[in-house]
């Protein structure tokens, strides 16, 4: 891929983490955020050992489809020369490809189109794939959206970078940085949330207090370590009451922009929110499990008690564990799988709770993740529309002529755009099940919430256009079009069997059933090898489209 600039120095220049650490008030941070790569430098991919294969290619493809934005030849080759834990460790050592730093290189860092372009460019080309992929998963758990919220585009990038740079840190830090980010502050109205004022007839805003518990940490009901709701007399046991919400809301009062001089002042979206004690509720507050927040506490001290309480709740491991498994691996993990991940959340083996590195390894290296349907007959998940496009462009090196990936309006073309969910409940809910057999048998399929007649047509047609009309060599394209490189397919197109075998490998890790492969091979054979504008083009495009539109590809297992 072509570099955007002439600067070739892969220097680590940004020490924003240190800066943020100073600016976030009164709180000791365990892990500093990862440093950002120099946005002006060409991405550097780790060199690949020239040794015999260690990890079989289909295994590598399957794994990369879970741990990255889609398997691609370079990464498959690279991973095949090492073990899966070695690959993860290599990813853990990398710095972060930060979104704001790249956005700042554009002419306008407040233009949504540029944010979209940079998101796709990072998803498709960033070397720190695992970090980017986990950040995307986190963005679907700690949801902030620019839909209807009025949060500026550059503030969305600042928020996304919190997830990118802390993806391998500690969950407690993620929780705190998310809580104090002005984007989240605006989205769930903790920004400018003030204590009750009888004269004005107002009281504390409950929005963030409720959602931080319901969606970001403990959920609605008490869970066993394997994520199964605990029962008392046949009923589930609530984790919190309306009174807990009201008292937590009071605890979360008093925060404004980090550059404010007075409570309602300020406009700096780059730094964390700061407290104004005059607007903080300093009464005694009792929150869940009878934790008492004593009176006259400062906003930051009160916040610490609340976040510590939530972080240490036994629900967090199974609650967040299940969500990460669903985002990265499978819709219906077994209770044992959840329990194994939750155990790593509770203790990384060295007595540390919330270590994301341990949790991510537990999610991706679990026997159930690695063995798929062999371990759990219901293993698998529907690929999100965004992840299908990133896979297409990774596997076939898709980009515009200048190396950018100008896919500006994914919401209108595929119904999903990063940080643009319709609400804090994301594009889909963890417990969504479409009507029919999935629901009747008590299973979940969150991504199916985006599946319906209108979306099916739109998605299939968009994919059709992106493949059939946007390939290098097509004389009818313009420089902004994202073109895929189908050389790997054209060279195999003389043999329909080879062509289908290659697509089956690089896209599914050899998961197409024999009967489906036969249909594909026969169809490809019926197409003339000689075609315009080059030999093999028609066969390549038709085969690629049919594989990517098959349920056996779109359901990733």
């Amino acid at each position: 891929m072509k570099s955007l600039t002439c600067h070739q120095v892969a220097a680590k220049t940004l020490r924003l983490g240190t800066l943020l650490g100073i600016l976030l008030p009164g709180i000791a941070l365990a892990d500093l955020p990862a440093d950002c790569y120099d946005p002006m430098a060409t991405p550097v991919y780790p060199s690949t050992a020239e040794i015999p294969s260690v990890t079989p290619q289909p295994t590598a493809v399957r794994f990369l489809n879970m741990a990255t934005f889609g398997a691609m030849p370079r990464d498959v080759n690279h991973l095949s020369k090492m073990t899966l834990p070695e690959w993860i460790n290599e990813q853990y050592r990398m710095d972060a490809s930060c979104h704001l730093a790249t956005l700042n290189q554009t002419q306008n860092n407040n233009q949504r189109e540029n944010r979209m372009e940079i998101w796709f460019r990072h998803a498709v080309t960033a070397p720190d794939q695992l970090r980017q992929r986990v950040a995307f998963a986190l963005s679907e758990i700690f949801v902030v959206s620019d839909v209807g919220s009025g949060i500026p585009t550059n503030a969305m990038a600042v928020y996304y970078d919190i997830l990118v740079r802390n993806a391998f840190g500690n969950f407690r830090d993620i929780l705190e940085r998310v809580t104090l980010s002005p984007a989240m502050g605006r989205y769930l109205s903790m920004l400018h949330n003030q204590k009750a004022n009888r004269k004005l007839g107002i009281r504390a805003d409950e929005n963030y207090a409720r959602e931080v518990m319901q969606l970001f940490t403990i959920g609605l009901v008490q869970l066993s370590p394997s994520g199964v709701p605990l029962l008392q007399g046949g009923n589930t046991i609530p984790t919190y009451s309306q009174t807990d919400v009201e008292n937590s809301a009071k605890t979360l009062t008093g925060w404004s922009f980090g550059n404010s001089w007075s409570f309602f002042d300020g406009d700096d979206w780059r730094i964390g929110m700061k407290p104004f004690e005059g607007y903080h509720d300093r009464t005694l507050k009792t929150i869940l499990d009878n934790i008492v927040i004593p009176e006259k506490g400062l906003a930051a001290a009160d916040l610490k008690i609340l976040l510590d309480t939530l972080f240490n709740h036994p629900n967090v491991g199974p609650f967040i564990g299940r969500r990460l498994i669903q985002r990265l691996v499978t819709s219906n993990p077994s209770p044992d799988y959840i329990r194994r991940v939750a155990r790593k959340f509770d203790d990384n083996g060295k007595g540390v709770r919330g270590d994301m590195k341990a949790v991510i390894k537990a999610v991706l290296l679990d026997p159930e993740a690695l063995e798929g349907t062999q371990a759990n007959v219901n293993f698998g998940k529907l690929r999100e529309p965004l992840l299908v496009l990133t896979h297409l462009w990774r596997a076939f090196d898709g980009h515009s002529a200048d190396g950018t990936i100008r896919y500006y309006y994914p919401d209108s073309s595929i119904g999903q755009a990063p940080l643009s969910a319709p609400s804090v409940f994301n594009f889909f809910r963890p417990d969504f099940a479409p009507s029919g057999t999935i629901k009747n048998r008590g299973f979940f399929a969150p991504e199916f919430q985006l599946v319906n007649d209108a979306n099916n047509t739109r998605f299939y047609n968009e994919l059709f256009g992106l493949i059939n009309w946007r390939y290098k060599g097509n004389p009818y394209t313009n420089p902004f079009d994202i073109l895929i490189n189908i050389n790997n397919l054209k060279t195999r197109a003389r043999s329909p069997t080879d062509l289908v075998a290659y697509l089956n490998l690089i896209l599914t890790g050899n998961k197409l059933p024999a009967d489906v492969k036969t249909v594909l091979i026969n169809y490809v054979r019926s197409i003339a090898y000689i075609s315009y504008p080059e030999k093999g083009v028609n066969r390549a495009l038709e085969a690629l489209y049919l594989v990517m539109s098959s349920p056996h590809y779109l359901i990733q297992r």
Partner: protein
Amino acid sequence: MTASKHWSRRDFLQCAAATAAGACNRKSALGFLAGMQAAATEAATPDYRALVCIFLAGGNDGFNVLVPTDTGPYQTYKASRGNLAFASDNLLSLNPTPSGQNYAVSSRAPGLQNLYNNGRLAFLTNVGTLVQPTSKTDYQANVHLPPQLFSHNDQSDQGMSCELDALEKIGWGGRMADLLTNLNGTSRLPLGVSIAGNNLFQVGNSTVPYYMSPGGVNNFYVTSGGLQDPRTKAFNKMLGLTLTNGRLLEREFAKSVKSSIDLSQTLITALANSSSGTGIWPGSSIAQQLQMVARVISVRQTFGIKRQVFYVVQGGYDTHDDQIQRHGNLISELSQAMAAFHGAMDELGVGNDVTSFTLSDFGRTLTSNGDGTDHAWGNVQWVAGGSVVGGDVYGTFPDQTLDGPDDSGYGRLIPTTSIEQYGATLARWFGASETQLETIFPHLSRFDTANLGFMA
């Protein structure tokens, strides 16, 4: 459209009866003629009924849409709503209710005011999710309350399903479709049509709605070559194999794609002859969705369809912040969209056959959190259309006194009418029998009436 054209069948009959006594002075002669026309057109399609669910996503602050203006209740309203209270001269007044109470609507809702004053819109209060009739004492003692009160997804799921405790919920629109879909004979178009994507409301045990976008239906490129095209054949064969041999998720996905392809061509052909009337439609998303509903209704005879349930969504009601501005804008859009929609229904001759109604996650706190409101419970909903016995406020308007008998705290009002009673009144008009109502609304028998009387 002038107000006088908005005549319901009820007005027409009342007026016709009254004319004999020389007492029909509410409507102009023009209105009288328009009413006769509407009645005549209606007779041509007596067996068509459609319900349009307008879901106000995020939790609409209904108690700032409908405001009491009699002195006592208004003073209470003003005290409880603090900096969110509308000044009495900043409201649009409604005709007095038949029992003589006075209400007004938000100044941003002239469309709703018109529909109401023309007898084509009714408000319902104080409605919400309930397991059984619930008093403040019950609430305080935690007796049979709906689970997870005040939570967005749980409360909207409960309002859409009326299955408060079930883990695997289906919607009451879906159950209605399950039971009444036989009225549609062999129609290829499902009884439910969603213009706003997947929703629990329309999902039944055996029926799934058809999903379309406000822009209509597009062709599937992959099969556009026709059934004999080699690509179509390969694609269909692949789907077919998945349907027989695939695993659960693959099979269910293939099923959805196959049904989308099968229906798309039928819809495209039918919609080519559709109409949404001659009126001007606003550009808002909710208006565009309702315009699509109008187009589908206009071609109902192509499908031989007798019963339809539509679903549209207007989002953005979770007004924790900046409520006066944001909520006002939303209500303004909605009011314009509903006015355009019911105008079009009259023009298409189905004014009395189509009823729209609102649903929302929950009501909002009467009290202010600074410049917005938080999640609450009881709410105001409204229904519109020619078969609505409009110009009235149904249910019991709550005592809005903070910490009063209807307040569970901070102005979270305890509902006095169940969503199931609300739904049952609509479903009865739609054609559900007594027994079917009990199936569709599992807790209905616990409440004093299954018919709130707002449908003619």
